[in-house]
């Protein structure tokens, strides 16, 4: 009998706990004023006011981009926690698209405290799951100075509030860019060196060079077979094959469309998918593929396999965004000494015949208002969260994030200029070291450009002296041979073109949903291109397959999409005119 009672009690407990699991979520509310933020409660050995372990809040962040999780007890993370009272556990996208990941998070109701939803940002806003920045922008000067008033307006949603701020491509003071963080046809410096640093301007020249190099050097020094060209087509990263057409035609990265400026006051939307230039580009890839110089697995490789392939140093060239591959291969490159073997990539500013100026490189800042860092309604202490976002912009903590600990990770010379020793530079490329020591909170507010001290760059990769000191010899030789100060000179995009108020248009197409006819068309165009772009490249009868592709593409009703893009362009132009 006793057993019976116990088992009955257990059974009801089980049932109860199952009920409890379906409790509802709370209604989001928009705070008009900022609440009180926590303050430091202890002093450390150095006499600074710090937060004791008990007072430190643990928060979470999800970024809809792949990234490396850092280890708990990470040196700099702990140091920042001590100074700010907040420790953030960051998690990243794994094997899903941003939209699917964000969708699952919303559906589960289990939100992190901070989120950068990428392409899923609009959904978070639609679901009312974000906390408005407005009162905090007023309260924290650090946050306010991130953007000008006009720029902040760009982030304002239709309910009149600001819910996120993009944290990238934003310079404090004078811009210091030495790198090319955008898309390009990349080529390894050993190929250029072998050919005596020729001038490469067109796709034909580019592939001729690669082909003759592969013919002369079928393998690397270590016996690995050289792969002439590869092209990622995986999921959303298929931009690697998809949008070269717009750049080859000389246009900037509007991402999903071309903005034709023939009549500057009345810019019009154009589709680059169907242009002759795109046709010629794909036809060229088709020739290269059939000639056997292109990676046979290019269309079916996953992103991980792609990075793995690049990490061997065997891939001579590809078209990609810098951030999509460079950070992931830096570690393996350093480990195997591939940089010293001339496997580093430099960008080439290729153009189609008849085009003279190109805009592969985006000078200055780009404001992508479609996504950014946000605080969610699940965050129990938004005041502390925003205080944290503000605090990590303080120069002292910003230096900790990107430069590290003075004396350990960088040194300061007599003029106040930061520099690193060879060992420190090697450390900061080492994945294990980074996981234990470095904590950049890379998807939280940050600056590029010049530090508050007026001497240093906000981030080491933009510090000219550091940049040149860190270059491997073949790379440095290449820059010298082309008389280039950095990668922007290398790619040689036209300077002085002022970006319109509408730039970049992808910030709109990224947030389209199947709610509208244009969104449905956009979705279908994507599916069609995912299938047909690799298919025409691998085709044995290019012209026939191209024609079928064009039919399939037309069936998606791209005109619906283009019409909505035109509407948005008109709206942005009008808004820009009103503001200026």
């Amino acid at each position, binding site marked *: 009998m006793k057993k019976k009672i116990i088992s009955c009690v257990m059974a009801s407990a089980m049932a109860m706990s199952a009920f409890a699991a379906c409790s509802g979520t709370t209604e989001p509310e928009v705070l008009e004023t900022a609440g009180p933020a926590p303050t430091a409660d202890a002093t450390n050995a150095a006499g600074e006011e710090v937060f004791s372990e008990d007072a430190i809040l643990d928060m979470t962040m999800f970024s809809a981009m792949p990234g490396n999780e850092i280890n708990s007890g990470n040196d700099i993370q702990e140091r920042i926690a001590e100074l700010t009272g907040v420790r953030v556990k960051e998690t990243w996208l794994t094997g899903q698209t941003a939209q699917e990941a964000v*969708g699952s998070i919303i559906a589960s109701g289990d939100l992190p405290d901070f989120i950068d939803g990428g392409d899923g940002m609009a959904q978070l806003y639609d*679901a009312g799951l974000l906390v408005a920045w407005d009162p905090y922008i007023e309260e924290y000067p650090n946050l306010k100075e991130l953007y000008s008033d006009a720029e902040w307006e760009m982030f304002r949603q239709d309910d009149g509030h600001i819910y996120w701020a993009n944290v990238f491509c934003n310079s404090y003071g004078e811009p210091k860019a030495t790198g090319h963080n955008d898309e390009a046809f990349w080529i390894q410096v050993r190929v250029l060196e072998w050919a005596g640093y020729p001038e490469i301007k067109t796709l034909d020249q580019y592939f001729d060079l690669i082909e003759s190099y592969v013919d002369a050097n079928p393998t690397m020094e270590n016996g690995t077979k050289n792969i002439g060209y590869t092209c990622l087509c995986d999921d959303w990263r298929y931009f690697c094959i998809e949008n070269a057409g717009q750049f080859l035609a000389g246009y900037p990265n509007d991402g999903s469309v071309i903005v034709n400026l023939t009549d500057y006051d009345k810019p019009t939307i154009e589709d680059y998918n169907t242009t002759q230039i795109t046709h010629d580009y794909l036809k060229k890839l088709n020739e290269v593929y059939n000639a056997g110089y292109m990676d046979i697995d290019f269309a079916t490789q996953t992103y991980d396999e792609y990075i793995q392939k690049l990490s061997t140093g065997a891939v001579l060239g590809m078209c990609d965004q810098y951030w999509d591959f460079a950070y992931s291969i830096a570690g393996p490159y350093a480990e195997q000494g591939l940089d010293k073997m001339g496997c580093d990539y430099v960008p080439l500013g290729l153009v189609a015949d008849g085009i003279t100026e190109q805009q592969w490189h985006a000078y200055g800042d780009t404001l992508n208002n479609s996504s950014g860092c946000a605080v969610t309604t699940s965050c129990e202490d938004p005041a502390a969260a925003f205080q944290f976002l503000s605090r990590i912009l303080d120069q002292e903590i910003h230096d900790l994030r990107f430069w590290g600990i003075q004396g350990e990770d960088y040194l300061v010379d007599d003029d106040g200029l930061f520099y690193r020793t060879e060992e420190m530079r090697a450390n900061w490329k080492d994945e294990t070291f980074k996981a234990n020591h470095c904590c950049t909170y890379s998807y939280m507010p940050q600056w590029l450009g010049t530090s508050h001290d007026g001497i240093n760059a906000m981030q080491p990769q933009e510090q000219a002296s550091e940049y040149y000191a860190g270059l491997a010899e073949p790379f440095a030789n290449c820059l010298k041979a082309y008389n280039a100060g950095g990668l922007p000179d290398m790619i040689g995009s036209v300077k002085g073109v002022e970006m319109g108020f509408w730039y970049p248009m992808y910030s709109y197409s990224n947030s389209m949903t199947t709610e509208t006819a244009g969104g449905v068309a956009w979705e279908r165009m994507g*599916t069609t291109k995912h299938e047909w772009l690799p298919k025409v490249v691998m085709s044995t009868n290019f012209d026939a397959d191209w024609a079928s592709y064009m039919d399939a593409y037309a069936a998606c009703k791209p005109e619906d999409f283009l019409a909505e893009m035109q509407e948005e362009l008109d709206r942005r132009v009008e808004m820009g005119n009103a503001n200026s």
Partner: protein
Amino acid sequence: MVLILWLPLFFKEDQCTMSKRKTAELDITKVKLTKKEFKRQWGLIFVAALYVIYGIVFYYLPLGGWIMAFQNYKLKTGLFHSKFVGLAKFKFLFEDDRFIRVIRNTLAMGIINLAVTFVTAIAFAILLNEVQSRWFKKTIQTISYLPHFLSWIIVCGIIHDSLSSTGIINEILLNTHILSKPYNFFAHPNWFWPIVAFSNVWKETGWNAIIYFAAITAIDPALYEAAAIDGAGRFQRIWYVTLPSIKPTIMILLLMNIGNVINAGFEVQYILGNGLVQRVSETIDIYILQFGVGNMDYSLGTAAGIFKTAVSIVLIFIFNQIAKSQGDEHLF
């Protein structure tokens, strides 16, 4: 859940009395629930009630969410304030070529998978049963069901690696001069369904065979002896004794799995699929994920889900009727 399943063990006493009654009155279903009866069997009734409540709460109440399929559901407005749009979402689905393709893929892969995993599991169980060495039998059986415990992401990783242009399969084909240059299996839609079917067979055959092993073990050895005396050879014994004896098990499992045909899978297709083969790789589940969760169109996702459930129910009914008319084991 596990606890609830264990509960009946504590009520052995009651069950015994019940079976006694069964022999006495022959038809247990006619027992009326009187106060006396309730007092005597309250424990059993309590447990049964828990199952009923569990079923209602977790299987029937959520069906209320089906209403979403007829609304333009928005998280902000919720179930009660979203706009009703009638059958618009279903209309969108059936006008979408992609959805039609997705149904075709799901059914095709579901049927192929069911057929091959079913046949291989039975064949494997029978073949292994014929092995005399006990040690060898046990070892093979253990090895064979190990892949079941690997997650799909790992299995797909292995498959993707082995079939890549530098993988083991291509290496063998090149070294034996069957191919002159590497072949990219994942770039050709024709290969996708066989690859998925093979993955399922590799992963699940050993596991699925366990139940047939059990069924075969239960066969009375006297039947084999009798057959042997009558001059039946090995294959005849399999054909006339083993197979008919496990036929009820086969039929029940087949029936239960028919309903799952529409669950042709999600992980394999999601992980192994790519742009080139998406025409044949996408299943209903992937479609639902992309539109329902990815685009936050819960209504569309729900509509697709309802359709899927309907197909499942229809399939089960049809095959149950067929089984019934054949005089075989059936579910209801």
